[in-house]
Structures are given as structure tokens and as C-alpha cells.
């Protein structure tokens, strides 16, 4: 191979993920796919040595020892050292935030108002965003994405697969959570905002409580007998009503212990389900978090330390929380600069190197993540009936030098070049 073709080959691997290019993803589902692995981590039981995952019509039909499964005739066959469920990124803003970081590809936040739960993620999502393809090449097949932290209530989130030409093709939960931020990041941006509030922590909590008090009133009036007195439809009230009904949890991005505590207080007052996000100092409040039965989607371990409210982040937080019995998942988070996204596979590697056992770390980006974002009936584990989402590696997935060699989503092979 001459120099140029070598360079091009490498670039093909690193830049495009081979056939993982968006326009190259075949629309029609293959009849069947059989994925053989020296080790298959099902996340629904112990790992299977020398196992196979059989996918028919986009769903998993069988997971078994290689010799014991029925392989349909004509099945596409893939092989690898390590086979895992398609990976799940429990929180990102990719698809709303784009890789160019220019005004036209940044829809993850609207700074016009501090409280906008009515903003739907599906109305901003760009399924052709290059960062989605980038993540998919590392085996990430499901992402919980949407409005980013940075306003008191920035909007809704959703769950999508990392494929599809339209959001309708990609989405599996169009409304997953309402993104709330407490602490310093909840303050409106300097000159950009029409409002000065919330300017303090107490004000942010007061404003949020005020919204729920109003929503309780709204619901009471709506349920009154007299149609004349019923309030007009209000998208903001409707979104908060979903939270009060327990259908749309609050995803509360907090870092300082003070703010974690405030989030738990609001959840208890209005009996709203919440998920703590980022939670840099969660290790200071493990008892309270556990008692409140609140899961935590922990910040990227590589988030820039030494900056503001995340100054006390640690590599061992995931392990500490998990040991305390708190449900945990990992995330790539929202990045405002270079790199424009992190890769949740790498985050799990750092967690695995800092106190988590292999399967615990894998769970934090598969089944446990799927459970926290409410899609564990479809993704996060390899068992019959689940979506045909599989990631294949040529070694320990957490090693920096291992490659993700193939990715299958809904029974379609979407990448077959090592990344």
C-alpha cells in the first residue's frame, strides 16, 4: 500500500466509520443477523462464552451458546471478541447541538426566558448531525438527548436511536424528561437575556416552586364542572402537569451539594419523580439520595476540572454511588467547545479504571442507563424480544486501544469499519 492509500484507509476508519455514513445505511432490514462473540455480555444474566445473538426482523430472537442456537438461512454473520448490547448514552445534547458550534447548529438552549418546559426536543433534532454518526461508530445506538443545562427550565428531552433520516424514524420516546438546572448555571446569560432572574439559588427554587403551585391551580380549575371557568390551554402548564402526574420526570442538572439538596426538597414537596444529572458532589449526600430513591446520571469523568461548580468532581464518584446502592448511569454530557461531544464508552472506561467492576461499568452505559431513561423494555440488554442493537469489539471495550468493529441497530448493520 502506498503512503496515500494508507492515509486514506486510516482516514476512512477514523472519519467516516466506513459504511457508517448516514446515506449508506440500508433502509431495508436484512432477513436475519447472527452475531458471534468469544464473550457475549447480555446484561440480562452472566456473560456467555462463545455465544451468539440471533436477530430476526429487527428484534432479538435468541441469545445462546454458539452451537445451541438456530441460525436462519441467509443470515448476515458478524464476529468479534466481545459482544455487548448497543450502548446507551444516558444524557447528551447531540442532535440539538451540532459539531460546528455555530449559531445555526446550536438549538440546545433558548435564552429568551428562564422557564420553557414546553420546548420539545423533537422540534430541534437533526438526525443527520455528524456527531451522531461519530458516536454510532463507537457502538452507541441509543441516546437520551434534548435541551441542555444552562437555564432554569430549558425544555424537554427525548430518547432516539442513532439512526434514521427523520426524527420520526429515530425516536423511541418523544418526551422523556424536563431539563432543569439549579445553581450558578441557572442564571441567565449576561447581556443576552431579557430577564435578570433567577439571580440567586433561592430565587431559582422559588421560581420553580411557583410554577408547580400555578400548575396545581391550573389542573384544579381544568377539572372544575363549569366549562366557562376552565382555563385556556397552556403548553407550559401542560408540560409541568405531566411532571406532576409522574409521566415526565425532572432531569435536574446540579453540582454543588446545596443544589442537590434543593432538588430533593422540591421533588419531595410536589411528589415529582426526578433524576439527578451531573451531580459533582453527590458523594457528599449518598444517604439522602438513596433515601429519596433518586437515580443519578453522573457527569463525564473528564469534564474540565477546576472550573466553577464542578471543581470537586472525581473519577470515583460513580463507584461511590453504586456502592451506596444508588442507581447510576454515565453520560457524555453537553460540551460547549472542543471536543464538542464526549464518548460515553470512554467515560465508562474511566469508571472501570476507578472502582467499578467490568460488568458494573458496562451496565452504566447499557441496562442501567436504559432503565433510568425508561427504555429498558427495548434496549440495554440482549434477550429475546428486545431491539436488535449490538456493538462488537476486538477486545476489552474499555481499553483505549480496542476498536468497535461493527454496530447493528434494529437488525441493520450500520457500521463495519473499526473505530
Amino acid at each position, binding site marked *: 500500500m502506498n503512503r496515500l492509500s494508507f*492515509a486514506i484507509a486510516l482516514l476512512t476508519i477514523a472519519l467516516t466509520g466506513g459504511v457508517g455514513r448516514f446515506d449508506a445505511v440500508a433502509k431495508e432490514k436484512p432477513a436475519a443477523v447472527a452475531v458471534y462473540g468469544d464473550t457475549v455480555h447480555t446484561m440480562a444474566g452472566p456473560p456467555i462464552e462463545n455465544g451468539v445473538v440471533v436477530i430476526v426482523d429487527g428484534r432479538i430472537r435468541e441469545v445462546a451458546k454458539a452451537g445451541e442456537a438456530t441460525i436462519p438461512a441467509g443470515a448476515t454473520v458478524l464476529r468479534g471478541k466481545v459482544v455487548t448490547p448497543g450502548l446507551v448514552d444516558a444524557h447528551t445534547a447531540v442532535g440539538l447541538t451540532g459539531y460546528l458550534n455555530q449559531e445555526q447548529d446550536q438549538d440546545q438552549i433558548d435564552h429568551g426566558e428562564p422557564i420553557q418546559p414546553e420546548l420539545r426536543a423533537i422540534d430541534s433534532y437533526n438526525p443527520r448531525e455528524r456527531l451522531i454518526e461519530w458516536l454510532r461508530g463507537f457502538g452507541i445506538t441509543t441516546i437520551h438527548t434534548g435541551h441542555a443545562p444552562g437555564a432554569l427550565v430549558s425544555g424537554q428531552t427525548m430518547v432516539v436511536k442513532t439512526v434514521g433520516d427523520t426524527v420520526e424514524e429515530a425516536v423511541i420516546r418523544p418526551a422523556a424528561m424536563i431539563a432543569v438546572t439549579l445553581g450558578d448555571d441557572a442564571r441567565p446569560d449576561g447581556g443576552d437575556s431579557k430577564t435578570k432572574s433567577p439571580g440567586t439559588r433561592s430565587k431559582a427554587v422559588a421560581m420553580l416552586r411557583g410554577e408547580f403551585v400555578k400548575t396545581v391551580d391550573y389542573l384544579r380549575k381544568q377539572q372544575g364542572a363549569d366549562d366557562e371557568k376552565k382555563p385556556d390551554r397552556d403548553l407550559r402548564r401542560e408540560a409541568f402537569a405531566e411532571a406532576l402526574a409522574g409521566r415526565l420526570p425532572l432531569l435536574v442538572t446540579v453540582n454543588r451539594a446545596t443544589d442537590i439538596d434543593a432538588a430533593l426538597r422540591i421533588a419531595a414537596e410536589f411528589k415529582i419523580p426526578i433524576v439527578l444529572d451531573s451531580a459533582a458532589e453527590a458523594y457528599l449526600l449518598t444517604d439522602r439520595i438513596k433515601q429519596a430513591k433518586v437515580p443519578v446520571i453522573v457527569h463525564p469523568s473528564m469534564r474540565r476540572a477546576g472550573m466553577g461548580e464542578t471543581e470537586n468532581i472525581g473519577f470515583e464518584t460513580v463507584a461511590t454511588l453504586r456502592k451506596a446502592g444508588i442507581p447510576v448511569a454515565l453520560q457524555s454530557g453537553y460540551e460547549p467547545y472542543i471536543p*464538542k461531544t464526549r464518548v460515553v464508552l470512554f467515560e465508562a472506561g474511566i469508571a472501570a479504571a476507578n472502582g467499578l467492576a467490568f460488568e458494573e461499568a458496562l451496565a452504566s452505559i447499557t441496562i442501567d442507563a436504559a432503565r433510568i431513561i425508561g427504555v429498558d423494555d427495548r434496549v440495554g440488554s440482549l434477550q429475546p424480544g428486545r431491539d436488535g442493537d449490538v456493538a462488537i469489539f476486538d477486545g476489552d471495550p474499555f481499553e483505549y486501544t480496542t476498536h468497535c468493529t461493527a454496530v447493528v441497530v434494529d437488525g441493520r448493520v450500520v457500521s463495519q469499519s473499526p473505530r
Partner: protein
Amino acid sequence: MLDNEPLTSRYQGRDFRLTRRLWPRREGNPAMKTPCAEPLPAAFAAAMLPGMMIPARLLCLACVATSFAFAAVSATGPALAQDRPVAFMGAEVLPVSGPPIPAGVVVVANGKISAVGPAATTPIPADAERIDAAGKVIMPGLVDTHSHVGGGWGGDASGPMQPDVRILDSINVRDSGFRKCRAGGLTTLNIMPGSGHLLSGQTVYAKLRRAETIDDFFYHAADGRILTGMKMANGTNPQKEPPFPGSRSKSAAIVRQKFLKAQDHRRKIEAAKGDAAKMPDRDLEMEGLLDVLDGRVIVHHHAHRADDIMTVLRLREEFGFKVVLHHVSEAWKVAGELAKARVPCSVLVVDSPGGKIETMDMSLVTGAVLEREGVPCALHTDDPVTDSRLFLRSAALAVRAGMSREKAIEAVTLAGARMLDLHDRIGSLEPGKDADLIILSGDPLAVRTKVLQTWVEGRKVFDRDDPDDRLFAVGGFGSSRDQKAHACCTDVRLSETSR
């Protein structure tokens, strides 16, 4: 082992380490010396008579003795010379300058490496302290060619080229970022001002000794000069309202005009032929640029896009300065030209492309392409863009994308040392070089490997078994105390995150 361990006292529940300075400082530039790290206690100053001369080291001792409140409070100890040989026994030694030694020995004495070789054949001095490192890996301390740790700021908003400005005048050596660097195995940094100027000032090459003041970090040339670089940048970062440039062509024109002025200044100096009366007035800006034009100082040039890289090559051709290209997101597009020009590149390795338009084609493959084309290649952290504690991860990700293990390890050690022109002192484990080394729990490129100890000039500056050090290795409450974020690229979005 060392008789200069800091005294430890508890005060209001915190450990205060009271440092004693009982030995003279290392030789350095006298102009840079400060008498004491902390202000003189008022009571002590009042007791002094006008004109009273007190040796600096006694003064510092007096500071400590006066009270806790006025003591030199430091989480580290003073920078002192090694006082007894140390022999690291039985580790797999990666000298970088040669093949790995499976069961090797490294002997260090007087701050220098005195021997490296197989355990069976390498003599150990009788008085050496022996450290059992069997099962571990020993390699040179890591060299980061591009860091922003220490809260330093270079040029201000007054103009696009500020060669008079030195980053060394603004660095806080107590910044916990330096402790994280040591925890990551870094022993030498090129600390840079930002890329928001065409020329944002002089960088400083910092040796991460235990430090009370910036003097303790310096490398010196034989003539006592502090070793520095010059930071330049092109592309979008320096573009803003006048007097800053508004386009790439304007950027190049401003740089060329300034260097022409420096050449004029040099002609005037030469014309004076040593006659003081005929010499032009001293001009700090011109002096900074002449250091570059005369090859005493290397330009460290930020450039992302391929055309910006080519612009740097053009300027180098015109003015003949030594240059290292940094970040080089699109170097893979012009690798052949870089090879022909033999211009070294220091590459930033990050998790994804994008973040700004210039980095849209950034790729993990850059290191592999440069290696293949024969372009000298180092890696850097650009901390805070990547975490110094995970510098070895950058090397591993480069290997993931096709770089060889040997070249990737060289890229975080010896290759970086060459780009700072410090390769005769650091970057490999060879007799005569500075005793800067790290002890790892295993393969340097494996995710679960830990940096166990970091040594600088034969002194241990990080020990993962010490709970105080461990905090900075793994993070947690208090791990970023005194750490200041540096808005490396004057990018509004980055500064937002530090709000």
C-alpha cells in the same frame, strides 16, 4: 529518606505544611529571585533597621518561625537537590531512547540518571536507597508541549502582538492543576499564553519540582537565561475588532510588518558595532522578537486548518525562525508538505471533531499519518482542553487510530523534549539526563494503569499512596482548590463554562 520533609501542622482542621528553606536556591537568573515567598510579617519588618541586610534564606526561615498565619503555606515542599542515590529495582524500564528492558534498574544520583540497564549487570552504589519496583513499569516523566495550567495570562486586549509579555510573571505555582499534572506523570510543561493573539507572549518551560515560587520551575541555559518559547497563533482565534486582524491575510501582514521592524532593529544594533552611544534604545518587544529571529527561542504556533499551517511555513521561510506547529487539526491533509519542510508538529487528541469550524476535520488519525510520513510528532494536553491526568490516554487513542506504540510513547516524552530543545536533558532514561521518571502499575497505554509515583530530579513529587496526593489523582472535595481556569482560546463559550 529525605531530611527536608515539610513540617506538618493542623490549623482549623486543615493540613498546613510549613516549608523551611534551609538550603540555597538552585542557581538561576539573579534578576528573577525574590527574597521570600510570603510577605514579611509586619512585626518582623518593624524590628529591622533601615538598610539591614538579611540573607534570603534566613528571612524565609524567620517567616515560618513567626506564626502560622505568616508562614509560607504550601502543599508541597521546597525545591531541593537529591541528597542520596536511589536505585529503582526490577521494573520493566522503557528508556524511550532504546528498547524496553524487561527486568531493569534505574539509578539516580544528584538529580541525574547515573545508570540504566538490566538488573543482572547494572552496578548499584553501596549507599543507594533501593526501591523495589518489580512488576511495575518505569518510563521518563511526560513532557507536555502545550499546557495552560497555573492560571497564567499573557497578552491583554491592547494589541495583536505582545512579544514583551512573559507568562512567567502570572503563574501561581500553588495552583492545584500542577498537582494534577504530577499525578498524571507530567514533569515538564510548556506553559503557554492563549491563542487569542497573533503573538500572545513568551511561554515558559516549567520543570514540575516542588515549588514555592516560579523560580523553582525554571529551566536555565548555560548563560543563566530562563528557557522560554514564543506563542503565536493564526486562523480565527486572533481575529476580532481592530487593532486585531479581521482576516487571515491581515493576520499575516501584521506579523510580517512586525518581524521586518525587528530586522531593522537588529541592523541598528549591528551598525552600532558595540558602541553604546550608537545603540538603539532598548525595546522589550524587539528583544522578544530578536530572540525568535536569532533562533534562541522557538515559536510555538497554534494552527488548525491546512491553509493556516501552510501560512506558518511561508512565514518561517521568509524570516527563518524555528517553529513547532501546535494542534494541527488538518495536518493530515498536508502531511507531505510538513515532511518536506521537516517542521515538527504537536498534536491535540480529543474525543470528537468539532467545537468550532476550524476543528471540523480534526481526527484521531493525525498522529498515525504524521508518523507514516516521517513528520516529527509529539502530543499535548492543551489542559484544560484535555485533563493532564489523562495525558497517556492521548497516546493510547493515537495508537487506536494507527500510530505505533513506540512512536506514541515517544510523542509524550522524547519527541516533546526535542520540540522544546530540551532533549539533551529530558525525555528519555539515559545516563546524564535529569532524573525525571514515573512509576506505573502496568502498560502505559492501558486504561486501568495508574501513575504510582512521579520523580523530578531524583525527588519524589507525587505518591499515589499518600492520601494528600491521591486526592489530586482521583478528584473529589478540595481537589481543585486554587485552580484557575485559563480561557485558552478567548472563546466566549469556553469562558461561559468557567463563569
